């Protein structure tokens, strides 16, 4: 007797996203070509990756740094750039206190430096641009969501896309200059004149779920674990099906 039954994975869409095994298993050398400050704590690092196989918005990659004695440290980072940025990818990194890898990027890295990268990896959080996407992020959790927005713009996609993003203050809103009409910003500590200060709430999410696009939203939540828990509950309470919520949690 051969069982073929596999319990249904209710929240899976991955059938439409093929992750290249070869891309995931090979390290290659990338060169830092640009460094761009986004906020006082957050910086974008532009990397030339000659053999980058391409990615989908929302995917991440691994970065490996190696010390002279052979000690290596590797971390997963979301890709910030759109797939069409030929030969380049961008990473936007928080300066984590004591961060071993992000610390090197923020304090040592300069154009011309080389690091090893591997990927893209994981297809679950990816958005190919085919379904209406409701993006909810906080802090540097906006990074993979920005890749989706950039993709949407670069391809002139007409599928609905909305972003609700939380930041402590306007100064700490990552990509502030680039965010447009698709975005609602929520500020938790200080806000521009006339804008309320407070946590992301049902009032920010419920109206978007009340005006569902045809086929409904695919929700993507990215941020700290506490934010992800909070935001995903807001979505569920507002009626978003749990199997159409994808979550990327930052430690």
């Amino acid at each position: 007797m051969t069982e073929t039954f596999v319990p249904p994975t209710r929240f899976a869409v991955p059938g439409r996203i093929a992750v290249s095994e070869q891309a995931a298993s090979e390290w290659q050398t990338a060169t830092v070509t640009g460094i761009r400050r986004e906020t006082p704590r957050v910086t974008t690092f532009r990397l030339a990756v000659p053999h980058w196989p391409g990615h989908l918005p929302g995917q991440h990659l691994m970065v490996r740094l190696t010390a002279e004695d052979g000690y290596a440290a590797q971390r997963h980072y979301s890709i910030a750039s759109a797939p069409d940025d030929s030969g380049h990818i961008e990473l936007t990194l928080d300066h984590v206190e004591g961060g071993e890898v992000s610390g090197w990027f923020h304090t040592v890295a300069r154009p011309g430096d080389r690091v090893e990268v591997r990927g893209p990896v994981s297809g679950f959080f990816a958005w190919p641009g085919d379904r209406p996407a409701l993006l909810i992020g906080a802090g540097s959790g906006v990074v993979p969501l920005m890749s989706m927005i950039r993709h949407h713009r670069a391809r002139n996609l007409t599928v609905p896309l909305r972003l609700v993003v939380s930041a402590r203050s306007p100064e700490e809103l990552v990509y502030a200059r680039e965010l447009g009409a698709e975005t609602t910003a929520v500020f938790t500590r200080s806000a521009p004149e006339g804008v309320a200060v407070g946590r992301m709430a049902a009032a920010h999410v419920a109206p978007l779920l009340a005006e569902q696009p045809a086929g409904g939203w695919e929700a993507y939540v990215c941020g700290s674990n506490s934010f992800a828990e909070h935001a995903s509950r807001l979505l569920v309470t507002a009626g978003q099906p749990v199997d159409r919520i994808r979550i990327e949690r930052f430690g």
Partner: protein
Amino acid sequence: MHITRGFTGRPRVADPGLPPGQYDAGDDWPVLSAEVTPELASADWTFRIDGLVAEPRTWDWEEAHRMPPSAYEGAIHCVTSWSKFGVRFAGVSLDAFLDTARPHASATHAVAYSHTGYTANLPLADLTGGRAWIAWEYDGKPLAPEHGGPARLLVPHLYFWKSAKWIAGLRILDHDEPGFWERNGYHERGNPWEEQRYAGD
């Protein structure tokens, strides 16, 4: 291997318990799950073993707690490269459940599935011999929902994505069938000591 200019890394403490490519997360215990944390009460939790077994069986919370207690103290390893030492889980050895269900001689693999629909595949040999648990306590307290409470699978010798949170059951098979992350490019087995992170490693 390419030496990174100016990278020294953390001070190295030779730790024989740290697999290659991993770092010690210390007191942190990052939460990594792709789905919404379910609101699953222990009274509603069940655990089932079926497929190629002599006695398919479902246990509820009370029945599972009447089985002989078993604990794990040691390390856990996440594919995103953190490891955590000195963790203490308590629950029941998976051997006790499998001894009741009695897999057929032809059984080689299992698909673990959760109450959320998450799946992970494992060779049966990785689930037997005192190396896997159904765990409901962490550090003497009930396992937190975001860490898989009320109960999760615990297979600490493999990367932690195999230790399915909110465990609902095991389907015993005579072949391997990739689970959720395995279909998303992760390795079929996930042995941290061999750095089996992604398909092809």
